[in-house]
C-alpha cells in the first residue's frame, strides 16, 4: 500500500494492489459507440476485466482498436456508452483523473528529460518529494533492467530501451489500469519476442490490470488472459485465447486466429477443422479419405501441404520434409472428428 502526498487533493490517486481478484466488474466498458461523422468506428462495444487481468484487443488496422484504447484513456471524447473502473464511473472524467496510464506506440518519451527523470515525471506531477521520487524510479529502473542507463537521454537509447522506460514511466504512478498501444510494432522481430515476455513479467510482478492493443495474433495469444477480437468496429469474440482458437464464434474469428479448412456447410453452420487436426494416413483404413496433393511448402521443421479433398482445398502439416509425398499424388488423410469446429455461417 502506498499513498502519495499531493498538493491538490482532488487529483490524488489512491491505489492499493490486490491479489488477482475474481470481481468481474473491476473494469467495464458498456455499449461504447463512436462515430466520425457518418462513419461508425466503434459499434456497441462492451468489455470487462478482472483485477490484475491481462486483456488484449486484437484486430486488423482500421478495426477501431486504437480508438477504443484512446476512449478508455480519455484522450478521445464524444462517444456513447459508459466506462467503469473500480466502482467509479469514469466516462466523463478527464484523462488526468482516471487512474489510467498509457504506453504509446512511439514511446513519446520527453526529449528534455533523461531516463530516470522521464520515469519520475508522473510522481513529480503528484508532488512527491525528490528523494522519494528518485527511490521509486530507481526501483522501477531495476525492474525494467535499465539501471545502467539512468542518465541517458531518449536520443541515446535504442527502441527497445525506450520502450522499457516508457513502461516504467507508466507503471510508476501505480495506475488502476495500464494501456499498451501496439508496444511491439516499432521493434525488430527478435526484440519483439523478448519484449513480449518482458511485459508479461512486469505485469505479473505489479499485477496491474492491463489492456494491450495489437494486430499480432501470436503476441496476443501468448500474453493475454483474454482476448477481444475486434472486427469492423464490433467485437467478434471476447474470450480466452484457447476458446478463440478452438471454439470460434464465427468464420472471421476462426480464420483470423489461424488457418482453417472448411469441410462442409450445413443448416447455417460450417463444419471446419484446423490443419493440425488433419493427419496423413499410411493406408486406406476405415475413417480415412483420399486427397490429391496440390502444393508443398517446405519450412524446415515441417511442410505445409495443400490438397484437394472432396472438391475443397484444404491445408495441413507434414512432419519434416515429407519426402514420400509428391505433388499430384494421391494421399490418405485422417481427420480428427472430435476436433471439428461448428461455426455459424
Amino acid at each position, binding site marked *: 500500500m502506498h499513498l502519495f502526498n499531493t498538493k491538490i487533493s482532488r487529483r490524488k490517486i489512491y491505489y492499493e494492489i490486490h491479489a488477482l481478484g475474481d470481481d468481474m466488474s473491476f473494469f467495464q466498458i458498456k455499449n461504447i459507440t463512436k462515430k466520425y461523422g457518418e462513419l461508425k468506428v466503434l459499434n456497441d462495444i462492451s468489455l470487462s476485466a478482472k483485477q490484475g487481468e491481462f486483456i488484449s484487443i486484437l484486430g486488423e488496422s482500421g478495426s477501431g482498436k486504437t480508438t477504443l484504447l484512446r476512449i478508455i484513456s480519455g484522450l478521445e471524447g464524444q462517444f456513447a456508452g459508459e466506462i467503469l473502473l473500480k466502482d467509479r464511473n469514469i466516462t466523463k472524467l478527464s*484523462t488526468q483523473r482516471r487512474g*489510467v496510464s498509457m504506453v504509446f506506440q*512511439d514511446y513519446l*518519451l*520527453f526529449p528534455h528529460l533523461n531516463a530516470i527523470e522521464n520515469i519520475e515525471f*508522473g510522481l513529480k506531477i*503528484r508532488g512527491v518529494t525528490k528523494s522519494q521520487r528518485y527511490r521509486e524510479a530507481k526501483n522501477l529502473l531495476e525492474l525494467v533492467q535499465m539501471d545502467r542507463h539512468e542518465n541517458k537521454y531518449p*536520443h541515446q537509447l535504442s527502441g527497445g530501451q525506450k520502450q522499457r522506460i516508457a513502461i516504467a514511466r507508466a507503471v510508476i504512478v501505480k495506475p488502476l489500469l495500464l*494501456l499498451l498501444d501496439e508496444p511491439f510494432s516499432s521493434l525488430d522481430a527478435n526484440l519483439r519476442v523478448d519484449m513480449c515476455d518482458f511485459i508479461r513479467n512486469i505485469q505479473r510482478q505489479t499485477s496491474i490490470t492491463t489492456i494491450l492493443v495489437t494486430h499480432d495474433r501470436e503476441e496476443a495469444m501468448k500474453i493475454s488472459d483474454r482476448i477481444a477480437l475486434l472486427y469492423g468496429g464490433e467485437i467478434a469474440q471476447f474470450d480466452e485465447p484457447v476458446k478463440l482458437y478452438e471454439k470460434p464464434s464465427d468464420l472471421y474469428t476462426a480464420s483470423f486466429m489461424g488457418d482453417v479448412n472448411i469441410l462442409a456447410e450445413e443448416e447455417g453452420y460450417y463444419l471446419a477443422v484446423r490443419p493440425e487436426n488433419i493427419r496423413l494416413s499410411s493406408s486406406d483404413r476405415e475413417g480415412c479419405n483420399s486427397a490429391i496433393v496440390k502444393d508443398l511448402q517446405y519450412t524446415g521443421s515441417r511442410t505445409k501441404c495443400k490438397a484437394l479433398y472432396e472438391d475443397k482445398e484444404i491445408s495441413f502439416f507434414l512432419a519434416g520434409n515429407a519426402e514420400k509425398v509428391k505433388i499430384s499424388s494421391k494421399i490418405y488423410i485422417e481427420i480428427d472428428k472430435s476436433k471439428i469446429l461448428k461455426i455459424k455461417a
Partner: protein
Amino acid sequence: MLQNKRALPYLLLLPFLVFFAVPLIFSLCSMLKQSFGIMPGIGLDELTLNYYVDVLDSGTFYSSLGFSIALSAIASLLAVGLGFAIAFILAEGKEEGMIMSILRLPILLPHFTAAFLIFLLLSQSGLASRVMKSFGLIANIEEFPKLIFDSQGLGIMISYIWKEVPFCILFIYPTLKLINKGLREAAYTLGANKFQYLWMVALPVCKPSIISLFIILFAYNFGSFEVPFILGASYPKAIGILAYISYISADIGSRPYTMALNIMITAMGGMLIFVYIWLIRKIKTMEGQL
C-alpha cells in the same frame, strides 16, 4: 553521405571564399587595424591601444551601451516571451485559418517601415491619441504620453516587438504543434494538467529554440541603426547611432576611435555565436526525438 575527395570541396567553396569570406574577413581586419591606430593614408602608423582607452573613457559610450543593452534585452525578452505564450495558445486551437499568413506580414516589412507605422500610431499626434481624444480620455495633445522620441526608448522597443513577436510565433509554433500531438497526451495520461504540461513539457522542450531566438533578436536589436534613428531621442543614443555619427563625421582623424568602438560592438555580437552554435546542436538532437 560524406564523400571524401580532397580537392572537390575546396573547389566548391571557392565562390564562397571569393564573394563572402574574403570581403567579410578583410573588413573585420581593416576595422581591427584602424582601431589599433594604423591608417597610413592619414599618416598614422603606430600600433596603439589609445583609441580603445578613449572609448572606454567616454561617458557617452557607457550611457549608449547601457541604453542599447537594456533596450534590446527587454525588447527581445518580451518578444520571445509573448511569442511563446501566443504560439502556445494558438497551438491549442484546432484550425489555423488565416492567422499564419497575417503573421507573415510584419516579417516582410523592413524594420524602418515598422518604425514608421509605430510612429503613425503612437506619436503624440498619432492614431492612439486621436482616438483617446474622441473618447474624451485626454483633452489636449500634450496629455498623451510621449512614447516616441522618448529617452526610455519605448517607441523603439514597441517597434521591435511589433515586428519580432510574429517572427517568434512562427518559429515556435511548428515545434509546439508537433509536441502537442504526442507529448501532451503522454503528459496528460501521467496526470499532468494543462499548466503542468506547459511548465514541465512544452516550455523545457522549446527552451533551446527560445534561447536561440533571444540571442538572434538581441544581436539584431543591439546593433540596429534604422529604428533608433527614426524613433530615438537625442539622448541617450543607441550604440549603433553613436557609431554611425562618429563614422560620418567630417574628421577623418576620428576614424580609429570609431573603429575601436565598432570592434567592441562586434565583439559583443561575436560572443553570442558560440552560445548559438551549442544551442543549435541541442535543438537538432531534441527534434530528432519528436
